[in-house]
């Protein structure tokens, strides 16, 4: 009853505060959209300038959707600085050189990959031509030997006991099939190479849920403390747990709405591909948003101004990004591997990747969900205990 009134009050306050509403709903959409367009499309074409490069290599480059500009000798650095191409490929005395500025890995990566592949393929072609030559030489040779044998007297030939297999298999398929990639890549999850954004997106969804909910819950609890209304509230017979749960569910409503909007927007407007079910994405993020609520409320206990609340962001929020599945925790320093398990975003981010990219089912994400739930229980308990500062019972 009291809790319901508290929830009603919070809803009223949030709905009246247009800026908070914008921060909750528009800000994450804006940032996610921005990121979607900032990361280049892998199908975008890369331009390479070719100097002294034979037509065969150029053909292969062009087959791989690389735009090739044939150029003469030039000042490579200024040519690249002017943005004419992502790299310059040269051949000198059989040595291949690709020059890049090394300031834009997004375009230069594909340039390096494309040109080394082209050079490798030409070398392979040469090799297979050589093999062809060798085989035809051998055929000539064996024909010569046979001829010779026929001219020898029969008894000599028998004694020599040369078991000449004259049927050298001349059907050897010496033609290496150049239409295929030199390496064929098998994808265990998904069916094409994931762009960075595709890996990042599910993590970002969770990050925004975490960040904005943390901020808004923390700020409003801080306001409640500094305006004296929390103390006033505690002078009424309300239970401390009713306050904490009232806050949790009051802001929880908005957290759930925000989660829904971010997820639906990512999936339906930005076409984020999801291998698993969208409802599992909801569940993970709703759990996470309640963790963020609990943490925000708790940290507001330790600050006395909004500025101090902001200071917690680089301390508490930013480090969590690194552990959220973007980087492989298993290969980090040992002490970092110990830190990862205390971060809620570590569980949520990895669970999101599991659902979105690997199509994990609800049963398979049960473990991270239980840990997130544990976080909620711990934060709620600490919050209730923290209220003792204002009232002893």
């Amino acid at each position, binding site marked *: *009853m*009291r809790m319901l009134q508290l929830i009603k009050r919070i809803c009223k306050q949030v709905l*009246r505060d247009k800026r908070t509403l914008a921060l909750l709903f528009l800000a994450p959409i804006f940032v996610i959209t921005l990121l979607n367009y900032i990361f280049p499309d892998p199908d975008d074409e890369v331009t390479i300038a070719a100097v002294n490069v034979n037509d065969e290599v150029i053909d292969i480059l062009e087959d791989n959707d690389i735009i090739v500009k044939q150029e003469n000798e030039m000042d490579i650095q200024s040519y690249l600085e002017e943005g004419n191409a992502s790299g310059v490929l040269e051949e000198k005395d059989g040595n291949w050189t690709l020059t890049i500025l090394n300031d834009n890995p997004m375009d230069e990566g594909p340039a390096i990959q494309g040109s080394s592949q082209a050079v490798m393929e030409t070398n392979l072609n040469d090799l297979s031509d050589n093999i062809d030559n060798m085989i035809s030489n051998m055929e000539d040779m064996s024909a010569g030997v046979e001829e010779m044998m026929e001219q020898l007297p029969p008894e000599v030939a028998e004694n020599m006991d040369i078991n000449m297999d004259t049927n050298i298999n001349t059907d050897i398929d010496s033609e290496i099939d150049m239409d295929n990639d030199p390496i064929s890549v098998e994808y265990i999850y998904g069916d094409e190479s994931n762009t960075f954004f595709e890996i990042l997106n599910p993590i970002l969804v969770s990050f925004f849920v975490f960040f904005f909910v943390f901020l808004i819950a923390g700020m409003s609890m801080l306001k409640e403390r500094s305006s004296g209304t929390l103390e006033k509230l505690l*002078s*009424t017979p309300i239970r401390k747990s009713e306050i904490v749960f009232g806050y949790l569910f009051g802001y929880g409503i908005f957290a759930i709405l925000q989660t829904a909007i971010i997820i639906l927007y990512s999936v339906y407007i930005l076409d984020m591909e999801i291998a698993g079910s969208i409802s599992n994405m909801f569940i993970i993020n709703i759990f996470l948003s309640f963790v963020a609520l609990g943490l925000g409320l708790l940290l507001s206990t330790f600050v006395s101004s909004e500025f101090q609340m902001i200071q917690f962001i680089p301390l508490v929020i930013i480090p969590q990004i690194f552990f959220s599945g973007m980087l492989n925790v298993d290969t980090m320093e040992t002490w970092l591997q110990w830190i990862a398990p205390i971060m809620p975003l570590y569980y949520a981010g990895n669970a999101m990747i599991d659902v979105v990219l690997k199509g994990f089912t609800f049963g398979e994400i049960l473990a991270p969900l239980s840990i997130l739930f544990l976080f909620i229980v711990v934060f709620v308990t600490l919050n209730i205990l923290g209220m003792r500062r204002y009232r*002893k019972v």
Partner: protein
Amino acid sequence: MMQLSNMSKSFGKQTILQDVSIDISANQITGLIGPSGTGKTTLIKCLMGMEKYDTGSIQIDDTAVPNRKLLNKIGYMAQSDSLYHDLTGLENIQFFAHMYGRKISNKAVQSTLNLVQLEQDKNKLVAHYSGGMKRRLSLAIALINQPEYLILDEPTVGIDPVLKLNIWDQLHDLKKESTLLITTHIMDEAMKCDQLLLMKNKGIAASGTPQEILENFGVSDIDQVFLKLEEIEYANASAD
């Protein structure tokens, strides 16, 4: 009946209240007066169970403080306005009324608003209230659940003289059902109390009806009592 016996309270090394024993009798207005920083607010917070006291005991209606259920019987007005600025006056009252868990009729809300003369402005956001209006709204909130005990920490600061008289009349009316404890710095308000508690030096320096106190100290107004107390203290100090 509110009873403090041998209650002490300190913040860290600073002792604020030492061996304070008070009986606050029912259906009377008890005024708690004393210089700024003597611990009036601290005493009130201990009485409500919001602050922990170190030794002694506090009882309200034979129930030991702190006790959450006791808060049902208490209406409290803090020294600083504790209002939701993004809600209207009426919404503030209604919200706190619900916190007492009792059904509070619209009529009761209306008459409380009339008492503090906020009927006109009840639908304004508190952010747009004047200082005195906020004070009046806080008072209305303390009265809303018709509490047995009313604890008001400087209720009339920033309220104009006419309204102040009006409010004091109402407070005397409330005595029929309630016991009131009020702090104030205004001496003619002190004179309107039934009982006075004078706080000085970590404890109660004098108590009784205003008339008794004036007679005991042989002075004509309460301000002079504090001057007298200083003199006595000074005399004692130089005698040592």
